[in-house]
């Protein structure tokens, strides 16, 4: 794989584990907050852990929003959002009451569990994904594989055809979304053993 991957650094969370996954697969990748690296890239990974509102204001301060919109919507570069990076692709979030990138007709809402004793928030740990549509991202990934999740907010998707995976935690919520060249996963493939490595490999093959 000779493509160049940019891992967008917008000042949140642990980018090293994503970078290391790329290194393990011998993929040419760079961690950067420089818009020129996004322009130069063939594929984009938008990782992130942390606060939605703060993440959006960081993207704004770094002047990355226009570059990302152009790379993703006009140049149609494949992009994978991970966890908070996926959440940013929605229209808005209850976390920080902020607007997102708006690439999906979706909102991010707080986990509202029926029994706080039984279902602790954050939803933290290994949970199954159910595959809702055919996708290259799911190639060689077995139905109901386990992935590692850590999140207190989740997706509410208005266009069901965008839903790639669902997961159950007290109730069923969308755990991955896909529309054209845009992919977002709530879970952490970079921390999810073989299934996670397979998913990243699939993305890099796009």
């Amino acid at each position: 794989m000779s493509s160049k991957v940019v891992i967008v650094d917008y000042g949140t969370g642990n980018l090293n584990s994503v970078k290391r996954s790329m290194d393990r697969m011998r993929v040419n990748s760079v961690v950067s907050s420089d818009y020129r690296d996004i322009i130069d890239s063939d594929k984009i990974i938008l990782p992130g852990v942390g606060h939605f509102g703060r993440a959006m204001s960081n993207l704004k301060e770094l002047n990355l929003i226009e570059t990302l919109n152009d790379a993703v919507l006009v140049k149609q570069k494949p992009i994978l959002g991970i966890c908070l990076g996926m959440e940013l692709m929605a229209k808005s979030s209850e976390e920080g009451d902020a607007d997102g990138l708006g690439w999906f007709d979706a909102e991010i809402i707080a986990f509202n569990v029926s029994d706080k004793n039984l279902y602790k928030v954050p939803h933290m740990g290994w949970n199954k994904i159910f595959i809702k549509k055919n996708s290259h991202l799911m190639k060689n990934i077995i139905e109901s594989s386990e992935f590692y999740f850590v999140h207190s907010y989740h997706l509410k998707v208005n266009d069901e055809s965008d839903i790639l995976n669902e997961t159950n935690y007290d109730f069923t919520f969308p755990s991955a979304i896909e529309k054209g060249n845009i992919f977002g996963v709530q879970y952490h493939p970079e921390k999810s053993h073989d299934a996670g490595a397979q998913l990243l490999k699939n993305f890099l093959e796009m």
Partner: protein
Amino acid sequence: MFRPRIIPVLLLRDWILVKSIKFKDHRYIGDPINAVRIFNDLKADELIFLDIEASKNNRLISLDFIKDVGEEAQMPFGVGGGVRSIEDIRAIINAGAEKVVINTHAGQNPDFIREASETFGSTTIVVCIDVKKKIFKGEQTWILNGSLSTEFKPVEFAQLMEKNGAGELIIQSIENDGTMEGYDIDLIRSITSEVGVPVVALGGAGNEEHLVEAYRDGRANGLAAGSLFVYQSKKRGVLINYPEKNGLMFG
């Protein structure tokens, strides 16, 4: 069904893996990086490394060590040992750990947990609550690798840590540590019934039935152990091992 995480907790003296009994009698286990490779192959859910002498010696767990673990680990991992500042946490995360475990400084300065969770997000900040009975006082929370008691009762301290933003609590029984005779289920249950964040049980697991008990009766969200995963049996011959997750009856 959402299953609990099963988490090996590996104790370090600097770069050497050791295992204690009741926080004493440390025995040499082996090379921690080799253990990470084995836990990768065994598909462990998560790993925790604690440098048990860091706070006592006024130093931070080795950042080079964390980098080495990060190079290998294909699962999330947390580290603890001597964490006293926001800069310490930032350095640990930059070195590659997902979670930072805090014990001594949380007991000495509970407000630090608020500052830490506001800076890095709750899911990064784990508080390890070490519990032991004190004569005439009942169960207390201890710090500095179990050498100094605080005035906090375990439940009261757990609630305070949750309020201050800790994303997860490890509840460790000092008296059960290394015994391999089972968790302190009453202690675990007393915490899980009073807090809304995930609780990890630690101290005393010696077989898979103990894990199931901590989940079923203790309502723990994470089942952590040291001896169980580094010893072959109660005879304590060193053998890194991990249960077949789907073989455990959590239902």
